[in-house]
């Protein structure tokens, strides 16, 4: 291929990449073509070709710039927001699904709609602490710490939360701000119920858990970590199914057995917990007939 053909071929290739939306690749090829012309004794005076390539490089660079500067979290239409909320909530439990839907909105950058959903859940007392924590976390990280403080003050000035709940939320805010390296000034709340709070796990503070990992303490699988998908969650009670052929695991998971080391996986975090098997049943009918369903009650998280 002679020099002229090579340059034409590069420019054509670049045009096609541009049409494909591969702007960086197009720019590279245009620049390659321009360099070849400028280095060539025979072609370096072809002003129109040089100008044409320069124009195309400028144009493709403008497009790259536009793409890079494009807003990454545009405000979507209400229909679109509702669709996101529906498509990305998987729990069969309606209340948890509502929380998941609101979290999905926040993850897709639809913050104001997510806040509206969280507020609605709080008002309806649907996992209010979980909803409030998600809302505060989202405001602190994605909007501003000041917005989260304002929100907390707003709640503190109304009767939407009990004193016990407000203390718990304040602790949450303090821990989060420490983690984020932000200094917050939060209003004082009497700590009368503080000690009582710490005695038990607060059911509403259990976040939606999608799977757990437990360590078996007997049999040939001793000390092996086993992953189990959660089929249902009601507060701190997690239900999961074990296939009938996992005899050793089924024998190990007797009602009353304490599981000291559980790793809980949720859409937003991974955290350790301990728990006890509170129910064990063999499924009598349906596609999972013969398998076992277990209830695991979390004690400490």
């Amino acid at each position, binding site marked *: 291929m002679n020099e002229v053909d090579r340059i034409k*071929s590069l420019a*054509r*290739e670049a045009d*096609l*990449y541009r049409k*494909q*939306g*591969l*702007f960086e*690749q197009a720019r590279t090829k245009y620049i390659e073509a321009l360099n070849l012309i400028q280095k060539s004794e025979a072609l370096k005076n072809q002003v129109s070709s040089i100008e044409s390539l320069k124009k195309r490089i400028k144009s493709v660079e403008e*497009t790259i710039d*536009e*793409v890079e500067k*494009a*807003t*990454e979290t*545009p405000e*979507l239409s209400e229909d*679109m927001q509702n*669709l*996101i909320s529906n*498509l*990305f909530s*998987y729990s069969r439990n309606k209340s948890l699904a509502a929380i998941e839907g609101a979290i*999905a909105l926040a*993850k*897709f950058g639809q913050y104001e709609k997510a806040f509206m959903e969280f507020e609605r859940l709080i008002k309806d007392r649907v996992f209010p602490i979980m909803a409030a924590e998600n809302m505060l976390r989202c405001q602190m990280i994605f909007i501003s710490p000041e917005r989260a403080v304002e929100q907390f003050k707003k709640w503190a000035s109304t009767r939407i939360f009990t004193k016990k709940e407000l203390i718990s939320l304040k602790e949450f805010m303090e821990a989060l701000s420490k983690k984020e390296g932000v200094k917050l000034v939060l209003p004082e709340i009497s700590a009368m119920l503080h000690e009582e709070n710490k005695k038990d796990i607060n059911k509403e503070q259990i976040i939606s858990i999608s*799977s757990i990992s437990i360590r078996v303490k007997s049999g040939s699988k001793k000390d092996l970590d086993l*992953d189990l*998908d959660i089929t249902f969650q009601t507060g701190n009670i997690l239900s999961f199914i074990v*296939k009938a052929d996992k005899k050793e695991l089924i024998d190990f998971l007797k009602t009353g057995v304490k599981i000291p080391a559980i790793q809980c996986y949720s*859409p937003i975090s991974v955290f350790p917990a301990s728990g006890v098997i509170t129910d064990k049943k063999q499924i009598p009918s*349906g*596609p999972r007939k013969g398998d076992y369903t277990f209830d695991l009650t979390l004690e400490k998280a």
Partner: protein
Amino acid sequence: MAVINAKEKIIECKIVYYGPGRGGKTTNLEYIYKTGKKYVTSDIVSINTKGDRTLFFDFLPIGLGKIKGYDVKVQLYTVPGQAKYNSTRKMVLKNVDGIVFVADSMDIQRKENFLSLKDLQENLKEQNISIFKIPLIIQYNKRDLGEQGIPIMPVELMEKDLNSKLKCPSLEASALKGPGVAETLKKCISLTLKSIHQELSQ
């Protein structure tokens, strides 16, 4: 994970089109939407950014009618291909039942294909899903571009790059013009339903 309503005899499953940016995932869905009116149950939803790039996802629900007495509904999604949108890809991949990996046949996209497949493997692993076990089809897209003078990779090379370990079904396609699009989807649905059936009968 597929939703099976035994009482109402409905199976709902989720298929995700994965692959490098500008590889033709959205074009696949658009072609299905245009030509598969019989199966399409709603409008295609696309959330794009500048340059027609997928920002969040595309979504197209289709209905296959009755299969062995069950009403089979399939939700088709695409993910944004650009590397920076990994958290969105993870969200869209949640509860996935089957995957179409749309590889770009253009020479210059060789590395991008490889990186995207690796990214898929890692994101599935986070959900405790093995890329070797999930129903997966590789589609070698843009085969028509060779005719326009764009250097494209031979299928053998792409097989070696992407499918030598996976050994999953692979098809050639041109999502813009249509060849291979329906075949890819049919194959993926078939593998996905087979996998769901196997899981249920275990």
